[in-house]
């Protein structure tokens, strides 16, 4: 074939045009910092980047959710600490009040201190964060306990509040019925009112030595259980936060570099992790199925 000048010209022109296009593309990538600016550059990577961008925004919301829950957990933690300390003082006062050598005035002084402790309990029950009462369950904008120590929160509002953490519904709250009642029935405020009334009465020892101490025992064990559950919730949120942080780092890097090698490695790692976790779920689950449970319960 004879190569004409026109053909040479066209070829050179085409080469120049292509080179210009490549230069322009590189320039665009340089300014945007992305290898794939338009889906036509690499449709698969572009789609994936778009998916990951969406997930990234979702994870950022989960991070905010976790941060809110963390605030609640810290509040519950410090409040249950205080409740524990106040209960301890209450125990001392009950034991002290049951002393036969005390005069009526001595007992009245103890009753006054119990009234003050009751006020502190009420304040703790009505703790709020950003206008939300943390022990009020579903009625978080209403005080759960009035100034006299009556639980005014409705029984219908006594529900677990949950938040979405990575598509996992996480329940984190405690209500007044959890933290301020004995076995979920009698309010701890009533217990203190009865204590105060009995101490001002004629013969308080019977009530103090049997009923009051026994109820306080059960209340303290209730508080211990809340401390344990809240501690476990704290661990859970810490774990979730760490996972969200890891994902944000990976996804941000992916979006800036768009490296498929990293993507496949991460995807494979996730599949391996899935297998590891599923194996862990299968172990240890049978302990409570043993006949031993019947043996000790029957």
């Amino acid at each position, binding site marked *: 074939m004879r190569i004409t000048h026109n053909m040479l010209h066209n070829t050179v022109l085409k080469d120049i045009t292509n080179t210009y296009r490549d230069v322009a593309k590189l320039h665009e990538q340089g300014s945007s910092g992305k290898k794939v600016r338009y889906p036509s550059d690499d449709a698969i990577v572009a*789609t*994936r980047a778009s*998916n*990951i961008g*969406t*997930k990234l925004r*979702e994870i950022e919301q989960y991070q905010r959710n976790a941060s809110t829950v963390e605030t609640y957990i810290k509040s519950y933690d410090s409040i249950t600490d205080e409740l524990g300390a106040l209960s301890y003082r209450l125990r001392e006062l009950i034991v002290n009040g049951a002393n036969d050598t005390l005069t009526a005035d001595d007992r009245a002084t103890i009753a006054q201190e119990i009234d003050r402790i009751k006020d502190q309990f009420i304040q703790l029950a009505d703790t709020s964060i950003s206008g939300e009462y943390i022990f009020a369950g579903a009625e978080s904008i209403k005080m759960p306990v009035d100034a006299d120590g009556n639980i005014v929160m409705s029984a219908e509002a006594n529900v677990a509040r949950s938040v979405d*953490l*990575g*598509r*996992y519904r*996480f329940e984190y709250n405690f209500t007044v019925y959890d933290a301020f009642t004995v076995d979920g029935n009698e309010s701890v405020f009533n217990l203190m009112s009865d204590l105060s009334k009995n101490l001002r009465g004629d013969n308080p020892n019977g009530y103090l030595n049997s009923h009051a101490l026994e109820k306080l025992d059960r209340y303290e064990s209730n508080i211990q259980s809340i401390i*344990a559950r809240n501690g*476990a919730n704290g*661990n*859970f949120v*810490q*774990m*979730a936060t*760490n*996972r969200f942080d*890891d*994902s944000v780092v990976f*996804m941000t890097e992916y979006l800036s570099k768009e490296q498929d090698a990293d*993507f496949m490695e*991460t*995807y494979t790692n*996730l599949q391996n*992790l*899935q297998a*590891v*976790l*599923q*194996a*862990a*779920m299968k*172990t*240890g*689950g*049978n*302990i*409570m199925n*043993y*006949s*031993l*449970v*019947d*043996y*000790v*319960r*029957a």
Partner: protein
Amino acid sequence: MVKEAETLKAVFNEFEHTVRENIALLKTQQQCMINGEYEVFEQLTFKQEDFDRKLRLIEQQRAAVSDSLCEELSIPTGTSILQIVEKLGDEGRELMVSVSRMIEAMRELTFSRTNLERMINFQLSYIEFLQAGMAGTGKMHTYNPAGKSANLQKTERFQGDG
């Protein structure tokens, strides 16, 4: 105390000791989950399997010793510990203390186990969430031997049937 009752008490103590060790392991596993140390976590899962086996053996031992104690006391085999203690009278007090401690340990074990399961369930659901983000589907599926895609989920981008 009759010899079998002493042996039974020793079995309960061993059970409690093993359960407490198991609780410590579960707590370490939880910490691994928090830190994302999955290789260590996997190794600990093997240890958990050892605990399962050990507890099963102790339970078998418990059943055997308990039955021989029942024979000694002339009560039906398989009688519950509360009835055995009642039959033993004052001698059963120490045994009851061991049982109470063992039950307390079992409660703690259940609590730790539930917490770990909750963490695992979160991780599993989060992995699915990440995979969906990466693949644009619930799972990144390939084609099965029949040439049809297995379980491809419909998404905004993919509306076909595989």
